[in-house]
């Protein structure tokens, strides 16, 4: 009789160790879900069906879902495109395509996914602070440059600056977070 609980407990420990040592966060969600299921089984074997129902409903359904959303949000690189594409002539269009190629390779280097959005109103600084926008692209006609704006605190911006500093048609502006005085 006690063989099965013991085996399951050892399995639980193995899964816990796997969670601790595995590098890929998305795979861990599968582990944590099965961890919850095995834990729930053990709760039943310890004569606690009430706890098991709670664990199955919360621990291996809702919490893994929240993990999925949270981790997928952490793999996004949200770019807000504010370039008016109707106004661009052909030479700039080529550069625009080049810019997107650079961004795509940059995003792949950092194992992220680019999520381009458009049509959000508001000042650039407030957008980066309040909404999770990582990069804002706009085009300056006088300087003939694309201007990329982002937060200074983000390490991704540092990487981006390193990657693009030799390109003359890109200028990067970073917002520094003001000191809070309350």
């Amino acid at each position: 009789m006690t063989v099965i609980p013991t085996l399951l407990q050892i399995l639980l420990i193995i899964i816990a160790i796997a969670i601790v040592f595995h590098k890929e966060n998305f795979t861990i969600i599968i582990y944590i879900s099965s961890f919850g299921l095995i834990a729930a089984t053990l709760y039943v074997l310890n004569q606690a069906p009430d706890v098991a129902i709670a664990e199955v409903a919360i621990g291996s359904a809702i919490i893994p879902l929240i993990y999925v959303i949270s981790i997928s949000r952490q793999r996004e690189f949200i770019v807000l495109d504010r370039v008016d594409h109707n106004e661009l002539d052909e030479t700039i269009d080529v550069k625009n395509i080049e810019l997107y190629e650079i961004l795509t390779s940059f995003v792949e280097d950092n194992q992220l996914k680019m999520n381009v959005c458009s049509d959000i109103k508001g000042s650039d600084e407030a957008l980066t602070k309040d909404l999770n926008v990582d990069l804002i692209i706009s085009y300056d006609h006088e300087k003939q440059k694309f201007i990329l704006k982002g937060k200074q605190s983000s390490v991704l911006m540092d990487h981006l600056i390193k990657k693009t500093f030799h390109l003359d048609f890109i200028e990067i502006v970073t917002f520094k977070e003001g000191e809070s005085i309350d």
Partner: protein
Amino acid sequence: MNPILSFIVILVGIYGLSVSKNIIKSVFCITIVEAGTILLFLNLGAYEGGVIPILSSLGIEIVDPIPQALMITTIVIGSTITSLALMLCIKIFHHYGSIEWKVILKGDK
């Protein structure tokens, strides 16, 4: 034998907390510690054997019902803490571009 194995689950979680490099991993490990704690409580509750604490007929020994009532509370508490931590995680990622402890704790003097 069982309580010791449950305690090992807790220790594995703590080990993970002390070597994990990013926030998400730490949150995972907190979940492990919590599950181990619940398991330890229930293990000890069923220490002397018994059946499910639902009245079927008087005279049959039941397991201790108190740990189960308390552990439901612990599960709810754990889930709320996990969700709060994950929401903070998303915000931190978009602020610092990373969720590595080393990067986010780097000087902001």
